[in-house]
């Protein structure tokens, strides 16, 4: 698994670098010169030859959706190839008509009538420039606009001129690549959501799934602009949603790392971090690019700190995750912000996935271990009745009873059959009713009475027959009691089981009333029997139990507490 993930990340990196080189590395065919503005409306302002030297370089605000014009001088550096034409891609706030050298080449909405007519037009548009007007040399791009919704956003233009067909195809290629990228995250997100639903304690899985989903949504929202028409009026909402997704990602990724590489005062640091992020998210009004950069940088630095701590503490997987974080910096230095952001996020998520894979591997091993363990416990339970010390001694006594008193011998066999039967019934269980366990103890005492000829008795106090207990736990305590005790003067050994239940725990006290054995025998008490009991308790209650075994005046006292 390690190998796979290690070899995967360079592959992804190469893929994304190839993607970044495939789009638009051809030399520019135009040069954008200064843009000037004038409030008012005059058809002659579209003309190629017009003296605009007295026009404003900058207008802060256009009042009341009034019409204004912009003129941009553009130098075409190279005429289009034969039978091809240039396209003009423009991204501007407002509804406008667009003129190239005085010729109307496109219309985006209804300039000047925005307050009366419903919003029309798109934020990103591509128009074809007539071939005969796209010759090498100076040209004028004139826009007749109105900006009713954002009167203070004048001149927020982006212009791209290239081969018309290439412009459209490049857009398509970029968009489709990014959608494949997003789709991968969606699938991973759904997969890990299902994993979480099947094991609801695994919060890292959920966080990873949410991160993947947010990245999917982010990419989809950012790159759907090329086929979903957005009016400039709604653009801010779009940017706000994008930034909210980014806010979520920026919080969750470091949070995830902190779960994997825990450190002291986590809560406090995350409250602080959350405050910083929300502060960045709220301030600076419409400076969305600045917000994005700040959030991504905070996320990176915070994650880096945590993973570096993980490396310092020599936690598993921390080195590889640190490597992916550093790699994302390399990508950042080698490419633009947009590409590095998605590549970087991809790399970081890959690091997170690696940690999850490690977790899943651990869980699988732990699960396999418990399977092996419970099989072993089952075998141990079955072995109780066929282990030679029990079986051969019982059979020897049985031979003797049969020889001496066949009737008693038959009763002995019946008791033995009953114990075997009870063992068969509980063989596959991890918890059985206490009444069944007590029945098992009683048949065992009956058998031992035939063997040892001691008067055994078992008293119960406060037993709730509905309570459950792992099989043969009391039986094992009873066996130990029989093995390690000598009868009292009246040739009896008495056992007593007391049950108490409180809000915090349930307690079984198992007392043995017998003569004390001499010193030197205590060391053997912690034998296979107690190991079996402890393994059974761990199987059913994890670490929420406590077993004490101690010598008492009357003989022996075992206390088993099961915490709720």
């Amino acid at each position: 698994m390690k190998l796979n993930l290690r070899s995967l990340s360079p592959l992804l990196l190469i893929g994304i670098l190839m993607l970044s080189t495939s789009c638009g590395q051809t030399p520019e065919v135009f040069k954008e010169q200064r843009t000037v503005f004038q409030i008012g409306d005059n058809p002659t302002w579209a003309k190629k030859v017009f003296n605009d030297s007295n026009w404003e370089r900058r207008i802060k605000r256009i009042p009341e959706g009034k019409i204004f014009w912009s003129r941009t001088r553009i130098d075409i550096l190279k005429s289009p190839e034969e039978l091809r034409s240039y396209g003009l891609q423009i991204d501007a706030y407002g509804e406008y008509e667009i003129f190239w050298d005085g010729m109307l080449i496109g219309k985006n909405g209804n300039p000047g009538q925005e307050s009366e007519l419903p919003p029309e037009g798109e934020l990103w548009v591509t128009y074809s420039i007539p071939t005969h007007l796209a010759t090498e040399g100076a040209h004028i791009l004139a826009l007749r606009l109105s900006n009713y919704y954002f009167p203070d956003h004048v001149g927020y233009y982006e212009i791209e001129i290239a081969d018309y067909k290439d412009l459209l195809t490049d857009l398509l290629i970029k968009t489709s690549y990014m959608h494949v990228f997003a789709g991968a995250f969606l699938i991973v997100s759904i997969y890990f959501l299902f994993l979480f639903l099947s094991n609801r304690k695994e919060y890292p899985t959920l966080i990873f799934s949410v991160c993947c989903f947010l990245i999917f949504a982010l990419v989809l929202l950012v790159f759907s602009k090329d086929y979903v028409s957005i009016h400039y009026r709604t653009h801010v909402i779009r940017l706000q949603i994008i930034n909210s997704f980014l806010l979520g990602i920026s919080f969750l990724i470091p949070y995830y790392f902190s779960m994997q590489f825990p450190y002291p005062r986590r809560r406090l640091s995350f409250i602080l971090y959350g405050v910083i992020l929300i502060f960045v998210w709220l301030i600076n009004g419409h400076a969305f690019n600045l917000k994005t950069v700040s959030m991504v940088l905070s996320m990176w630095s915070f994650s880096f700190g945590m993973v570096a701590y993980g490396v310092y503490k020599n936690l598993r997987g921390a080195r590889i995750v640190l490597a992916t974080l550093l790699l994302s910096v390399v990508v950042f230095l080698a490419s633009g912000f947009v590409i590095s952001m998605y590549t970087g996020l991809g790399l970081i998520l890959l690091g997170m996935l690696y940690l999850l894979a490690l977790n899943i591997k651990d869980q699988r091993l732990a699960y396999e271990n418990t399977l092996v363990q419970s099989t072993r416990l089952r075998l141990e339970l079955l072995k109780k009745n066929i282990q030679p010390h029990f079986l051969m001694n019982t059979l020897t006594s049985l031979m003797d009873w049969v020889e001496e008193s066949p009737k008693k011998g038959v009763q002995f066999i019946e008791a033995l059959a009953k114990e075997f039967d009870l063992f068969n019934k509980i063989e596959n269980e991890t918890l059985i009713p206490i009444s069944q366990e007590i029945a098992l103890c009683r048949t065992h005492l009956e058998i031992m009475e035939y063997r040892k000829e001691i008067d055994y008795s078992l008293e119960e106090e406060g037993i709730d027959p509905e309570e459950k207990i792992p099989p043969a736990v009391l039986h094992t305590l009873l066996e130990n009691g029989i093995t390690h005790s000598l009868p009292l003067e009246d040739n009896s050994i008495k056992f007593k089981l007391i049950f108490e239940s409180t809000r915090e725990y349930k307690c079984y006290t198992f007392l043995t009333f017998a003569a004390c054995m001499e010193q030197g025998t205590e060391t053997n008490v912690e034998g296979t029997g107690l190991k079996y009991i402890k393994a059974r308790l761990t199987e059913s209650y994890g670490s929420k139990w406590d077993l004490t075994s101690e010598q008492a005046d009357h003989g022996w006292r075992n206390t088993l507490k099961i915490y709720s």
Partner: protein
Amino acid sequence: MNILIVEDESRIAKRIERMTRDLFGNSLQSLTHINTLNEALAFIENNTLDLVLLDLNLNGDDGFDLLSTAVAESFHTIIISANKDQALAAFEYGVLDFVPKPFNQDRLEQAFNRVFTKEKSENDQTKLLAIKKRGRIQLIPIADLRYVKGAGSYTELYLTDGTTELHDKSLEKLEQLLLHTFERIHKSYLVKIDEIKEIKVSSGSKYTVVLKSGDLLPIGRTKYKDLKTKWV
């Protein structure tokens, strides 16, 4: 015969007791049953015994501590145990027989017969001899033993490193335990067959064994024939 039964299962102890009485009849002088390890150790120390019948699994204790003490004594030990997988180890310690549970009278009788060498011991696995030295039990590997010299009720063990140790068992009892690798060449000597270098015949039909170590040991007149067939 003075016999001790060490067994913590009272029904089984009674069974052994009954069968022992049946088998030994009037030759039985005393028969004691003890069910704990410590009591058994004390009893062995303070009483003269001819045979101990020992269960290896007493109240969850390992019977091998008691076993090594028992085999160092002058009496023979017979194990009666439910754990057959302990048989090999018990034989290595030098027990006369291992009777697995459940057992019947015939099997017990077979074991008792070995006490009187009516039947050869099946034990060809004795690897250790336990001796009491300064109040402690020490185990000597049979491989280190060259020959044994009888000295009344006890024996002297002559070892390969030239030292001598005392053992509480009589030469007859050791002969029973070492039957397969040692040969009785004289009423006072038991020699490891592998250690014999040659047999010398001197005038007056005096026979002597020359050991690899150079030691010379006499051969009893009646033993010569047996030894020659075995040694060649």
